[in-house]
């Protein structure tokens, strides 16, 4: 029973970080129709920036309560940094391509991926970076006979909070209305006097922020390593495809499905756990190309 609870918690932890990545990917696709291949790399970059910031400011030694508070407050810096990167990339690199066939947008994000992957190597070096001091300082809670890291619960809370926040933002604020209008018909939105260029920057930056946040919250639990973005992207894709490209609810449910299937997979069919996920994605695309929650 204890094992089972731990597995469920692990799935939820995993789902939280996957949701953060996938929601950003989905948002960017939904509003701008861009399949951002560099999105996983944004996630990795967020992890690196946060780990670096925490490590630089507080060293690698653990500390007391205030220390921990500072580290936690510093953690989101990765997300903010990535949002800034996104706000620069969209107008400079992506905007010139909107009138061209979509292949070019896909390709430029692939080019970005290559550039950013190596930039991380250049800036942060090849060794893994971690903010593990946070995890250690927060200790663990007992679950049955086993101990479970308290920090993981924080990640779940952040994931849930982000989901609620994003939902509120998109469905309950004025900006959300503008965002949805733009996503449904870009030209109509422009004709109605909305500043589509600004909406695009904002949407892209928010999407990047989500990816960066995903990296930032994960990095105390798992060290930032090279290649983590490339791996994460494909799983985020599976989430988004299962849930429906451009759908927030879809990203949420998709993240839960993927993480539970994956946890079960690692337990019961480790050889084909990834293959099963990709096959699920392919099957959903075939049966319901708009995903479980997508609109046509």
């Amino acid at each position, binding site marked *: 029973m204890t094992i089972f609870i731990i597995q469920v918690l692990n799935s939820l932890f995993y789902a939280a970080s996957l949701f953060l990545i996938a929601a950003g990917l989905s948002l960017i696709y939904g509003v701008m*129709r861009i*399949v951002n*291949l560099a999105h996983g790399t944004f996630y990795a970059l967020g992890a690196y920036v946060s780990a670096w910031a925490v490590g630089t400011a507080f060293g690698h030694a653990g500390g007391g309560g205030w220390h921990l508070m500072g580290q936690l407050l510093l953690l989101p810096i990765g997300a903010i940094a990535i949002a800034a990167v996104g706000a620069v990339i969209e107008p400079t*690199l992506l905007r*010139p*391509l909107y009138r*061209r066939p*979509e*292949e*070019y947008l*896909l*390709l*430029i994000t*692939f*080019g*970005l*991926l*290559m*550039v*950013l*992957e*190596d*930039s991380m*190597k*250049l800036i942060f070096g090849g060794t893994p970076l971690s903010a593990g001091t946070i995890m250690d300082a927060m200790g663990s809670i007992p679950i049955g006979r086993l101990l479970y890291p308290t920090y993981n619960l924080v990640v779940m809370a952040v994931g849930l909070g982000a989901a609620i926040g994003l939902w509120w933002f998109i469905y309950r604020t004025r900006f959300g209305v503008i965002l949805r209008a733009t996503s449904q018909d870009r030209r109509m939105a422009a004709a109605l006097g909305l500043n589509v260029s600004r909406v695009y920057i904002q949407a892209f930056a928010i999407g990047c922020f989500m990816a960066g946040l995903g990296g930032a919250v994960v990095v105390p639990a798992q060290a930032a390593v090279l290649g983590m973005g*490339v791996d994460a992207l*494909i799983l985020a*894709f*599976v989430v988004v*495809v299962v849930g429906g490209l451009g759908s927030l609810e879809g990203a949420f449910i998709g993240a839960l499905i993927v993480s539970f299937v994956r946890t079960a997979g690692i337990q019961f069919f*480790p*050889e*084909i*756990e*990834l*293959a099963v996920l*990709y*096959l699920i*994605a*392919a099957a959903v*695309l*075939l049966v319901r*190309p708009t995903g479980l929650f997508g609109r046509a």
Partner: protein
Amino acid sequence: MNPAAHTEVSVTRTSIAAVAILIGLAVLPYVIDIYQVQLLTYGLIFAIAALGFNLLLGSTGLLSFGHSAYFGVGAYTVAFMVRDLGTVSMELCIIGGVIGTTIIAALFGYVCVRYTRIFFGILTLALSQVIWSLAFKFFWVTGGTDGIRVPGRGMTLLAGLIDFKGSGAFQKFVFSYYYYVLVIFAVVAALMWVIVHSPFGMALKAIRDNEVRARFVGLSVRRYRWFAFIISGAFTGLAGALWVPLNGLTTPDILYWPFSGEIVFMTVLGGFRTFTGPIVGAIAFNYLKTYAVASSAYWQLVLGVVLVVLVLVLPNGIIGTAQQLFRKLRRH
């Protein structure tokens, strides 16, 4: 922007140009050193893959982001044949590799051609990663990340006529293999040229331009896309089969999705709206990557910058841009 459709295809002129280039390529190994010969062989092999890929992108208008699967299946089929069946004949390996890829391409293609545009791309990507994850996880079959070794000098060419034993085997292999690949390249490039300019190829372009009208001249759009997919996969699989003995090793890296991205990169680098674009792009990309890797730890950065600049400044690629310049010069 228009592709070179104003002039009718001249078989004679194309043949003369092709033969001249092939003679040049045949003489080259006597001029350059063995390492360069090896590099050029890689380039020609990637050119075959890119030619196959571009039947989908250039002619049919479908952007596959999963062509690593077909390259990889070709490569792994050969590796299995060599390791498990003790096959040494390169011809048998090629036949096996192409058959293996054709089956997978027929299967995946049947599913993928139900969609176009971005959904097609994601579907091809997802399916290719199924293969990757299997190669990655079933390490007792595939060797996992260590891959499978297929030393080139263990193979024989031309039904056993040429083998590589004794001293200098590697040099001998590279030298002979270059010609082997060159001949195959010449044959399949000619084959692809005919396909592209055949009534079938014309039907593909029509479907690319206007799917609705294609149906109303009586074309079963999905079936044509499927055939194009299979041919495309088979070409790329052939390239994978040829690649293994030269590389000496196959690993899951060639099945992972960034390799699909590299195939797209090559094709766009050369220019996907022209026939020769993918060939030139593949060879150029191979040099670019090799030198970037050799000269910097940050080769991805170099390639990434090239790709970004390419997309922004030269979207028609090397050949497409050259053609535009040429036309402009002729007009003035």
